[in-house]
C-alpha cells in the first residue's frame, strides 16, 4: 500500500522537476518536433540539383545534343560552360561542379563516321559517394544518346536480343525517402531525449544535494530506481505518440502495421534506453559527466543502428557490437510496423534483445547505485 504512495510521489516529483520550469516544457517538446521536421527533409542520400561543368571543344551537333539531354534531365541544375582545361579543373577544385565533362574536338566527327567517340568525365572524389551517383546518371544519359547514333559495325554485330530489368519496390513503390526517414527519426529522437532525461536524473540529485534526503527516506533502492525509470518512459511515450501522429498526418507515411504492437515494442525500447541512461547516471557524480557520457553512448548507437548506413556494410566485428545497440532493433520494428505490417513474431524477435539490454543495464545501474553511495 505504502509502496504505491511512495512510488507515486517519486514519479510526480520527477515529472515536476523536469516540467515545472516552462523552459523545460518547451525544450522537451519543441526541439524534438523541429528535429523531426528539419531532419526528415534534410537527410536524403539522393543527389539532385547537380551542377556540372562542360568543356566542349567539339564543333559538331552530337556534343550539343548530349549536353542538352543532360540539361533536360531532372537531377541536373546548372551547366557551367568553360573554355579551357584549366577552368574545367578549377570548377572541380572549387566545388562549383561535382562533375566536369569534356568533349574532344573530334567527337562529332567520330560519331558520324562510326568510330569510337570519347567523353571524359572528371569527378570530385572528395564527395565520392555523390560523385558515383552523378556518374551513374551521366552514364545512363550517354547510353541513351548513344543508342540513337548510327550503329558502328562492331556494335551492329553484337546487337542481339536485350534483357529488360523490371524493378518493383515493395512497401514503398516510389522509393520515397521521407517514408524511410520519418520512422527512423522516431527511433533516433526518442533515443536522444530518453537518454538525456534519464542520465541527468540521479546525477542532478547528487550534485544538488537532494540525494541524501532520498536515502534517509524509507524508499528502497529498487523503489528509487523504479521512480527514476517511469517518468522518462512516460515522456518517451508522449514523444513517440507525437511523432507517430506527425508521421501519419503531416508526412503522410502509411501506417500499415499494428499500433498496439508498435507501442508494446516501444515499451521495451524505452526500457532499454532508460536503462542505459540510468546506468550512466549512477556512474556519474556530476551532471556534466552524465550528459557527456550520454553523448558518448549516443553517437555510436546512431552510427551502428543501420540508420546512416546498412549494418551489413560494416566489418563483422562491428556488426557484433551493434547487437548491443537497442536502436538497431527498434529501427527494424518502427519501419516494419509503418511500412510493412511486420508480423508479430518478427516484432517479438526484435523486442527480446531490447528487453535483455534493458534488464542488464538496470541491474548494472542498481549495482553501481548501491556501491557509489559514499
Amino acid at each position, binding site marked *: 500500500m505504502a509502496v504505491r504512495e511512495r512510488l507515486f510521489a517519486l514519479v510526480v516529483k520527477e515529472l515536476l522537476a523536469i516540467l515545472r520550469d516552462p523552459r523545460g516544457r518547451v*525544450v522537451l517538446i519543441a526541439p524534438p518536433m523541429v*528535429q523531426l521536421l*528539419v531532419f526528415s*527533409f*534534410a537527410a*536524403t*542520400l*539522393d*543527389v539532385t*540539383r547537380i551542377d556540372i561543368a562542360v568543356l566542349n571543344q567539339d564543333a559538331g551537333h552530337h556534343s550539343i545534343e548530349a549536353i542538352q539531354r543532360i540539361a533536360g534531365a531532372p537531377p541536373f541544375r546548372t551547366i557551367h560552360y568553360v573554355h579551357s582545361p584549366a577552368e574545367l579543373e578549377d570548377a*572541380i*577544385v572549387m*566545388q562549383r561542379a561535382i562533375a566536369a565533362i569534356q568533349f574532344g574536338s573530334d567527337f562529332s566527327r567520330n560519331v558520324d563516321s*562510326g568510330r*569510337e567517340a*570519347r567523353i*571524359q568525365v572528371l569527378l570530385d*572524389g*572528395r*564527395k*565520392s*559517394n555523390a560523385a558515383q551517383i552523378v*556518374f551513374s546518371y551521366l552514364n545512363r544519359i*550517354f547510353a541513351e*544518346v*548513344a543508342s540513337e547514333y548510327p550503329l558502328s559495325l*562492331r556494335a551492329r554485330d*553484337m546487337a542481339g*536480343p*536485350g*534483357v529488360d*530489368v*523490371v524493378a*518493383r*519496390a515493395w*512497401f*514503398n513503390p516510389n*522509393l*520515397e525517402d521521407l517514408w*524511410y526517414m520519418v520512422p527512423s527519426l522516431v527511433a533516433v529522437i526518442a533515443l536522444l531525449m530518453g537518454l*538525456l532525461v534519464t542520465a541527468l536524473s540521479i546525477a542532478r540529485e547528487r550534485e544538488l544535494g537532494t540525494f541524501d534526503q532520498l536515502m534517509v527516506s524509507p524508499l528502497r533502492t529498487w523503489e528509487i530506481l523504479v521512480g527514476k525509470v517511469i517518468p522518462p518512459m512516460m515522456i518517451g511515450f508522449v514523444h513517440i505518440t507525437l511523432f507517430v501522429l506527425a508521421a501519419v498526418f503531416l508526412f503522410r507515411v502509411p501506417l500499415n502495421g499494428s499500433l498496439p504492437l508498435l507501442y508494446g515494442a516501444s515499451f521495451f525500447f524505452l526500457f532499454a534506453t532508460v536503462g542505459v541512461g540510468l546506468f550512466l547516471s549512477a556512474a556519474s557524480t556530476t*551532471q*556534466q*559527466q552524465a550528459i*557527456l*557520457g550520454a*553523448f558518448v553512448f549516443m*553517437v*555510436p548507437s546512431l552510427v*551502428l543502428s543501420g540508420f*546512416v*548506413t*546498412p549494418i551489413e556494410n*560494416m566489418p563483422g566485428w*562491428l556488426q557484433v557490437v551493434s547487437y548491443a545497440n537497442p536502436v538497431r532493433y527498434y529501427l*527494424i520494428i518502427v*519501419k*516494419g510496423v509503418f*511500412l510493412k505490417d511486420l508480423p508479430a513474431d*518478427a516484432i517479438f524477435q526484435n523486442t527480446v534483445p531490447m528487453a535483455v539490454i534493458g534488464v542488464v543495464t538496470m541491474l548494472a545501474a542498481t549495482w553501481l547505485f548501491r556501491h557509489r553511495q559514499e
Partner: protein
Amino acid sequence: MRLRDSLRRIRALVRKETRQILRDPSSILIAFILPILLLFLFGYGVSLDTKNVRVGLVVESPSPVTASLAGAFRGTPYFQVSEGRDRREFEDSLMRGHLRGIVVVPKMFTEDLAAGRRAAVQVLTDGTDPNTAKFVQAYTEGTVALWLAGQGSGAVQAPAGLTVEQRFWFNPELASRFFLVPGAIAIVLTLVGTLLTSLVVAREWERGTMEAMMATPVSALEIVIGKLVPYFILGLASVTLCLVLATLVFQVPFRGSFFALYLLAAVFLLPSLGLGLLISSLTKNQFLASQIALLSGFLPAFLLSGFLFQIGSMPVAIRFLTAVVPARHLVPSLSSVFLAGDIWPMYLEAIAILALMGAVLLTVSVRMTRKRID
C-alpha cells in the same frame, strides 16, 4: 596598466579553467576519447560503399542460360545471393528484412532469349530503405548488362560507339572514409566548442561561482575570453589527435598544409564557442544547455553540414537553413585540405564567413553575459 591588469585576470581565469578541464575526466572524454571513437566509427563502421547486399535469386526454370546468369550474380561482390525456385520462399525474408531484394528470372527467360525476343528479369526490393533499394535495382541492371555483354561475341561497353572515361579526382579508390573522416573532425570541434563550453558556463551559474566572480573587477569580456582560450586550445588539441589518427590509422591522405588545417579549425572554433557561450548564458542550466546544444550544435553539424547528406538535394527552406550552420562552411574546406591540397580561394571564403559568424555570436554572448544577476 589597465591592459596589463586585464591580461593578468584573463591568465588567471584561463589557468583555472585549464585545471578544471584536466581534473574532470568528462572533458577529456569529449575532447579525446569521443574523437577516437567517432573516427573509428566513420573510418570502419560507416561505409556508404554498399557491398554484400543480401538478395534472393529465384530461377523459375533452370537452364544452362540461367545457370550462367546466376553465376554472374554469385560472382559480383555487391551481392550475397541465396538461390531458390519460387519467389514465395523469399517473400517472408524480404518482409523481415533478412533480404534486401529478390531477383526473379522468370520461366520464359531462356525461351525468350532463344527466340530473339526481349527477355525480362524482375527485381523486388525492400522500399523501406530506399537507398539500398535503388542500389539493388541499379546493380541488378549492371550485373545483367555485364552478363549480356559477356554472352555476345566480344567484351564491349554497353553504350556502343561511345566510351566514357571516368576519373575520380582526389579519391580514385572511392573510399568513403576519405571524406567521412575529415567530416567527423567538424563534429568533434562542434562538440568541444558548443556542447562542452555551454555546460561548463551553465555549471558556474548553477553552482553560484559566477556571482562571486562577477563581483570582482573582472569584466564580462574577460570572463568570456577566459572561457574561450582553454576550450579553443582543447579544440585544436583534438584536431591534432584527429589528424594523427586520420593519416596514420585510416590512411587518409593529407595533401594540404598544417597551416591551412589549423587556421580553418581555429576560425571554425569561434562560432562554435560563441554558440556554446550564448546557450549557457541564456539557459544557466545544464539540462537545458545540453538539449539546446544538441539541437543547435551537434545535430546540424551531423546532418546539415553536407558531410553525410548532400545539401543540394535538400528542400529549399532547409538549404537556406544550412547557411547558418557553421559546420556546413567548414566541411568542404576540411575535406579539401585532406584530399586536394591548399585551395586558398575556397578557404578564404569559408574563413570569412566563419569569422563573421564568430564575431556576431561572440559579440552577442559578451552582451548576454552582462554582469547582472537579476
